[in-house]
Structures are given as C-alpha cells and as structure tokens.
C-alpha cells in the first residue's frame, strides 16, 4: 500500500512520517510516535480511552485516520503536564482518587481538559454529560466527577489570581 507523508504537531513537536492511509490516529500515536498514553480500549469508539485533543476538539483516536490529522496539532496525555508541573485535571484525578486501574484515565483526562475549556464553570450534571463519552470499567465515576469538579475549581482559582 502506498504510504502518505503527513506532518503532525504532537505535543508541540513536529513529526513527519510516512503512514499507510488506513492507519488510525491511535495506532499512529502508539506505534509511530511511541506515545502509549492513549489506549485502545474497545476499537469501536465506545469507550473513549483513546481520546486526544485535535486542534481544540476532543477526538477519539480510533475514529480518526492519521492522514486526516495532516497539518493538525494533536495533544495527548503525555503533553498535558507542563514539565514537572501537573495540569489541574491531572492533579484533580490524583487528589480525588479519580482512577483505579488507570486504563481509562488518559482519555478521561484529555476529555476533562477540553470540557473545562468548553465549560469552565460546570455543574455536576454538566460534568456527567460532558464526560459521557468516556467509560470506566472500574466504575469509579463518582470520583471522576469529583476530580473534574476539583480541577474546575482549581482552574477558576488560578484565573482569579491571574486577573
């Protein structure tokens, strides 16, 4: 199969790679970029474990082809922290025990990251709806919701301080 050259900015780093047109974004990230944070949970776009951010939108990595991301900016869980400083959503999940086995966590974090930019002051109900595309088999949803609300509060606090 003829390979196609794509240029994608992944976590701020420009990556140029020839990929088969059928390569899924999640396979591209995991195999070609060695970024195994995004997981393949179901391969059917149900679970959201492969959720990443493309040009400011949450996308399930198994529903996108790598070639569709040519010229795009992709953010994965590996690029969430600023050096040694965790992002507020990561800190929220840590402090509120928002994970058990951790498999769904990268997808949850990436969705929470985008969701809190779409809605910086969500109610608990809005968090539940906003995160509904991500499944957790440990069924730790209560703490996941708490974690996202925790992160929302932290982000609001930071904004207030900055203002």
């Amino acid at each position, binding site marked *: 199969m003829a390979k196609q050259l794509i240029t994608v900015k992944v976590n701020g780093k420009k990556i140029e790679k020839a990929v088969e047109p059928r390569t899924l974004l999640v396979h591209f990230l995991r195999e070609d970029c060695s970024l*195994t944070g995004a*997981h393949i949970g179901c391969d059917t776009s149900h679970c959201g474990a492969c959720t990443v951010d493309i040009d400011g939108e949450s996308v399930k990595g198994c529903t996108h082809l790598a070639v569709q991301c040519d010229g795009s900016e992709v953010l994965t869980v*590996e690029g969430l922290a600023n050096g040694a400083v965790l992002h507020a959503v*990561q800190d929220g999940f*840590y*402090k509120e025990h928002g*994970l058990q086995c*951790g*498999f769904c*966590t990268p997808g949850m974090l990436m969705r929470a990251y985008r969701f809190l930019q779409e809605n910086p002051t969500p109610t608990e109900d809005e968090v539940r709806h906003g995160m509904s595309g991500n499944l957790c088999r440990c069924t730790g949803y209560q703490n996941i919701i708490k974690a996202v609300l925790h992160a929302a509060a932290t982000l609001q606090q930071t904004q207030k301080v900055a203002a």
Partner: protein
Amino acid sequence: MNAPTDPTLLERSAALQGLGDSRLRKEDARFIQGKGNYVDDIKLPGMLHMDIVRSPVAHARIKKIDKTEALKVPGVIAVLTAEDLKPLKLHWMPTLAGDVAAVLADEKVHFQMQEVAVVIARTATRRPMASRR
C-alpha cells in the same frame, strides 16, 4: 480524600497515627501522565502479535478453513486452527474446573464468538482473514 485542614481533625489524625486516614496512591503519578506501561504498551525485540478469528454464528460445523488469502497478507507469519494443534495434542486443554475446553473450535462451533483460528503477524495491525465454512 484530601488531607484535613481543620485543626481538630488534624489533631485527631495525628493521634490515630494514620488509622482512619485515606492515603493518596503512589502509583497514580504514572497513570495520570500516560506512563502506565500496560501489556499492550510493552514492546519486546522480535515480538509477534496474535489476532483471533471468532465465529459469527452460535452453532455450526466447520467444513473448511481457507487460509490462503490470510497468508498472502504481508507480515502474516502463520494462521493456526485446531487442525494445526491436533498433532501437538494442544487442541483441547484442561480448564480450572477440571474438564477440558477446545482451544480453537474443533470441527464444530459451539457458541457465538468462539475462537476458530488465530493469525500471527509481525505487526499488531489487525489482519483480516478469509475464512469459509
């Protein structure tokens, strides 16, 4: 969840010497940064990948499994069925319940999604297989 900030609670916590306190988990640091290293994340030199071909029907006799198309796919090393396991006496294996179970469907499929064949390839990308029964 979070460490208490209320002074009376702090005093109580100290007196209990850790009892009744929830602890933040040590392992979370890697999980929240995408550094979990799950089985699917592990890469070893010379590693091969296996994909399972499952039965779409709940009950059927296997007349024939045609491997030729599957073996033509680049990177595919082997396609195994019960017929291949038979000479090795590996086609029926003991289970924890003390009985035996078919590793791959042996002449007959007994339930939907039963394992019928495995495709072994150099890359993890799913290899389609032309199977006919």
